[in-house]
């Protein structure tokens, strides 16, 4: 792909392109998928992506110009809550490490939502120590045969594709023997079982891989380089969880602020002080995210994204806890314990009890808050690493 520096895209040009798209594909008459595909092909899906892959090589910050213009015109969106793992994790990894053929095959249906993605990383025996995972991939001609068990897999029941981290060499230390693949969730040997959570529903799954054949052309990056590829995914995941652009009082704090305004009988001085502290913290977290986005107007997320996710988890938990308490007697009730299989991941949906319980996962999923603090301390602040006994030992010789 060739682009020239002279073609830098500005906000006016983007508005012009949006107008041209809307003129040719009127959202009022064209069906949703046709519109989304046309938007992708016009480079207006994610403007900071390369031309031909849904973008225009434009500054990332200009995406908001496109989104606002399309929203004002009543255009359909790609329902990001349904395809969050594809957008937030698979796509940036495909962009950075995928071959041209892989990018062309996967990115368009990923963005339009025609193909949902999930992430096969964590295992029952490999959580915070993800690099110790044991799912094996063994070379067999032009394919790999994968066997193992994955867990905490959101969207596995709706996914067509998965990003998969597997061990291709047990003879070397754990970080060196991993390889990153794209796995077909419809392939023989893939079994998805619901994993019921404390909310009652099964947003997560267990995924059993029993001699699943993954063609070598679905490998992402070099054999043995999977850890480096996975780090790109993980940094993007943390930004995706903690880094959404929100208006003031967006997200959880807005729900509680509206409850406070609408229900004077619930007010007490102690709750008032806690509400104001959390309102300040939420507003500052919003500003911090906004500042981070301004810093990374183009470019990839660094470890600072871990900080946003840490702040987001703490706030979600404290605010949702305050909401249940504020509601008093009503807080004793729960909407529904039925085992549901939701299609979307929604932290603020349903009732207060659900929000309180679902928020508990925010400090675990995508790297626990403890692991994120380690990352900040070592990679941002440069503090010395904890002494480690497993770094230079072949994976097969590690105790487990």
């Amino acid at each position, binding site marked *: 792909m060739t682009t020239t520096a002279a073609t830098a895209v500005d906000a006016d040009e983007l508005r012009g392109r949006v107008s041209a798209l809307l003129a040719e594909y009127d959202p009022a008459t064209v069906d949703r998928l046709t519109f989304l595909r046309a938007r992708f092909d016009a480079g207006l899906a994610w403007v900071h992506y390369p031309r031909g892959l849904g973008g225009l090589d434009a500054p990332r910050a200009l995406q908001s110009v496109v989104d606002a213009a399309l929203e004002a015109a009543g255009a359909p969106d790609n329902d990001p809550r349904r395809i969050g793992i594809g957008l937030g994790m698979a796509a940036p990894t495909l962009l950075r490490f995928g071959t041209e053929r892989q990018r062309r095959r996967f990115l368009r249906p990923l963005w339009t939502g025609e193909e949902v993605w999930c992430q096969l990383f964590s295992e029952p025996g490999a959580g915070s120590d993800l690099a110790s995972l044991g799912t094996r991939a063994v070379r067999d001609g032009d394919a790999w045969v994968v066997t193992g068990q994955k867990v905490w897999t959101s969207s596995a029941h709706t996914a067509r594709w998965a990003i998969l981290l597997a061990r291709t060499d047990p003879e070397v230390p754990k970080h060196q023997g991993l390889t990153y693949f794209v796995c077909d969730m419809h392939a023989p040997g893939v079994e998805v079982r619901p994993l019921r959570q404390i909310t009652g529903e099964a947003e997560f799954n267990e995924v059993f891989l029993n001699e699943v054949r993954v063609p070598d052309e679905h490998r992402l990056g070099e054999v043995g380089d999977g850890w480096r590829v996975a780090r790109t995914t993980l940094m993007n995941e943390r930004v995706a969880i903690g880094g959404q652009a929100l208006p003031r009082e967006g997200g959880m704090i807005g729900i509680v602020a509206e409850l406070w305004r609408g229900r004077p009988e619930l007010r007490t001085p102690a709750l008032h002080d806690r509400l*104001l502290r959390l309102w300040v913290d939420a507003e500052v977290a919003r500003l911090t995210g906004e500042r981070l986005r301004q810093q990374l107007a183009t470019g990839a997320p660094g470890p600072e994204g871990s900080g946003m996710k840490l702040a987001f988890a703490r706030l979600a938990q404290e605010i949702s806890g305050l909401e249940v308490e504020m509601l008093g007697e009503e807080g004793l009730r729960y909407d529904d314990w039925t085992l549901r299989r939701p299609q979307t991941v929604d932290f603020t949906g349903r009732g207060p009890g659900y929000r309180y319980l679902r928020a508990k996962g925010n400090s675990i999923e995508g790297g626990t808050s403890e692991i994120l603090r380690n990352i900040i301390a070592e990679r941002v*602040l440069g503090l010395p690493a904890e002494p480690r006994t497993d770094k230079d030992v072949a994976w097969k010789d590690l105790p487990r």
Partner: protein
Amino acid sequence: MTPARTVVPRTDQDLLYSEVEQDLRSSVHDLLADRCPPAAVLARCEDRTPHDLALWRALSRDLGVAGLLVPPAHGGHGATAREAAVVLEELGASVAPVPFLTSAVVATTALLGCSGAADEIARLASGAATAVLTVPLSTAPGSAFPQGVRADAAGVLTGRVTSVGDAGCADLLVVPATGPRGPGLYAVHAGARGLGADLPVSLDLTRPLVDIHFDRVAARPLAGPGAAEPALATALLTGAGLLASEQLGIAQWCLDTTVRHLGERSQFGRPVGSFQALKHRLADRWLEVVSARAAARSAADALASGSTDAPVAVAVAQAYCAPVAVRAAEECLQLHGGIGMTWEHPLHLFLKRAKADEVAFGTPGRHRAALAGLVGLPA
């Protein structure tokens, strides 16, 4: 969730530093690194001459920081609160004993709200004089007009104001006083007859307080009832909002100093900083400093643009940054172990400044209470 009607959404704030702001920062930083190491500040405090007037001359005249907020027509540089905030970050990171916040920000802003103060403003902008707004350092934006000093019909002042920060080095006092026609602002020269000063012992050694007595002191009226109250309100709002940047500078110094110490100090055969219990505490402090930077930039940007949202941005920044600076200093002390309790190590200067700053221009609780009214979350 739709935001409430009372909440103004903002999308156009610039929370970064411009190139000009970064250049200004490096000039101030280099000067302070050369002239204001923490050990020198400590030595000045021991000699009971905390204000470093030679340093202040270099800053105010040579670098021109005294005239940052003053329009060119009045002899200043026509910069904004954004640039002043960057200076305050550096001054906070050195606990520099100079009257930038009190004179070049607060008193200057008050004078800019008076129609008859062109001479005073020009002298402050050039660094030829230093001024102080005579209110207790703890006065929050939105406080009632002070009643401690009365003016008679001839503009002669009588009364008392306590705990005025940095007043000891001021040439000019800007005095809120109530006269027969209502609230006014008055100019008093530091050598005026009838003016008395007591020097209480201050918690913050680097921003000493003065209690001021007015016993029939001749004064020049600067602003009458219509202008005095808004001028005072703007000065206090600007002071509170930019104090957040000083607090950010303090917190950043404390974090950097703690990280350095934990990387160097060994116990149990390993650097103390490799213990996870301490790493996690520092990671939390780092996140607070990163967040305080966003809050402080937001307040400075809102003040600079004259946004109607400035009172919210300032209250958020003060409610957030004040405790962050205090925690950063307290953790700096704890994680230095016994060294942190010694007078010899300069970190106590930062702790004392941080704790005093938590009270200055309104406590975090006062700012949260103000927010309750501003964003429609009543008690």
